[in-house]
């Protein structure tokens, strides 16, 4: 499947797994930094609410890290549901062979 890359190819920065790990570690720090900024902003300044109707969603939306948690959960749910759409309990649901319509 995968062809062999040419031998005399120069090595790129991302070709080294150590650099990939550094990149990912930097990304974790970024996540922490964003949460920190959100917390500081929520404590020190007035956070503009999206909802003005005093509902439960309206009051929880302004809590620090609401968006982070929602984003993380949404994407996890998305991935697991999508996987279930491919095949559930070993039974294919929506996934078919590539030449399904040509058969």
């Amino acid at each position, binding site marked *: *499947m*995968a*062809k*062999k*890359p*040419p031998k005399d*190819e120069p090595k*790129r920065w*991302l070709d080294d797994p150590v650099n990939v790990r550094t990149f*990912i570690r930097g*990304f*974790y720090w*970024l*996540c922490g930094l*964003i*949460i920190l*900024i*959100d917390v500081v*902003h929520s404590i020190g*300044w007035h*956070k*503009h609410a*999206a*909802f*003005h*109707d005093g*509902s439960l*969603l309206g009051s929880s939306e302004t809590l620090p*890290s*609401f*968006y*982070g*948690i*929602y*984003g*993380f959960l*949404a*994407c*996890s749910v*998305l*991935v*697991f*549901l*999508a*996987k279930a*759409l*491919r095949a559930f309990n070993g039974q294919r649901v*929506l*996934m*078919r*062979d*590539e030449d*399904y*319509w*040509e058969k």
Partner: protein
Amino acid sequence: MSFLAASEIAAHPALPLLLGGLVTIFVRGRYAGVFMVAAPLLGLWTISLLEAGSSSVVSCFGQEIISVNVDKQSILFGYLFHLAAFIGGLYSFHLKDPWQISMGLLYAASAVGVAFAGDLLSLFLWWEALAVTSVFQIWGRKTERSEQAGFRYLFFHVLSGLLLLAGIAFRYASGDADPFALVSLTDLLTSGDAGAQLILLAIGVKCAFPFLHVWLTDGYPESTPTGAVFLSAFTTKAAICVLARLFPGAEILITIGAVMAMFPIFYAVIENDLRRVLGYSMINQIGFMVVGIGIGTELSIDGSLAHAFNDVLFKGLLFMSMGAVLHRTGEMRGSELGGLYRTMPLTTGFCIVGAASISAFPLFSGFVSKSIIMAEAAAHGHHVVWLCLLFASAGVFHHAGIKIPFFAFFAHDSGLRPKEAPVNMLLAMGLAAFMCIFIGCNPDWLYAMLPCGAAGYHPYDATHVITQTEILVFSALAFTLLNLWKQYPPELKSINLDVDFLYRKGGRLFSSTMATFWNGLNEKAHAFFVGGIAGKFSAFTAEGPCIMAKLLSQPLQRLGFYPGKSDEETEADLEQQATTGIHPIGLTALFGILFLLGFLVLAWLVGQ
């Protein structure tokens, strides 16, 4: 400033593109590419001369048709479609296929025509032109698959045209004073007017409403590398333009839009063809626009129009970067791609700009338009819809923002080492990427062109920037962790069933049932008429004279008319004479006299 009269305009704004399209039917080679770039530029200049409030009326069969009506919205879309045609033209500069070139320009002209249509009649003409001209971007691939996909695509778009025509007929029959006016039909829709419902359905097909969407995810991935860039720019955005005119504030659109924003992202995660992923992501983005139109405030509609403008640019940019990969490698399946950043670094960079824009990162174009719709949904108390849109925002980053660049340019090394994209493609991508960042950093430039100027909306508010960055970064975190934990669904050589299952299977069932029934009937009829009656008749005409002659000859034989011949000999003679058509003149004359006598008797009987 303008040399055109304020009330009446001299030429249709789509004229430069129309002429370009007609000329490139005949022009071949390099020069055709020049027209693809020059015609949109000329068109941009004509749009800049237009003044809001002017219009053009033609009289046809005693009916006044408003062929052009200029307002802020039509000017916005006029600029947008010409810009898209220019970028698409630059991207396809190397094309040699005259069908794709001329039809591409005519397709752009049709979209401009829809944007400027002044009533339902002129809208219908451009609407049909949009359907017919666009399909050549799919057929241009010249494979059996693309041919069939093109026909399925055309089926939906012809259906849309027929629905629109039926809706217009109902409007005409309703007896309204001005049945063809391009004004809000929302009240009529809520009161259950059949005309308004049919028109909404017609627009719904072109907007890719749920269950009517498969033409998009079926057709676009089968188009040529350049064709998808044209297709992604015009049809759906022209439909959004009409939807905003005809159905602002129709509540059903909020639900439809939320469903459109939600369901495609699940498909996008498990889809292998990366341009099909973009197709699903397109429906997801249109969902946002439909919600904005459904909320129906001036600000939310402005948000939808602004998002349509931005979507043409960033979705075009993503389709261009994938088109460049397809152009260089001939491959579009995520399972077969990967590691292309090594030799296509510029395309990778442009793709990432498009991905950041569609994901609505601050400083990129999606941020300044999607947020208007989100804010309006929240401000008008649509809690569930708001949660859906937020889910969809995280999801779109997941599949269009990360998956597209990751699986094409990074992920595992496919071993493919294609050349960087051609210069004209790079220029087109560069221009689109520049526009994405420019609008993201200068939203007021876009807001000033909106019909209501976005009513003083400010996207760069500290809360909004922080929360938006947070949701995106944590979506990326989920992607990263799931990938590291091997939970992320791998790219597999596969397809996924969509609602096309219903009509493709249904279509096959219909055609096989019809074939069995009608072919069976045909065989029965053949056996009865051709084998039965006709066979008997033919046998009668062939052998009848012989039998008749034998019958007549028997008494004559007895009377001794055939002296010196036995009965058998006489019969054999007569048979030979009858089958070869040679009778003695006397016998023929006898039959002739009998025949005429018969007529005489018949005439006498009738005369009585």
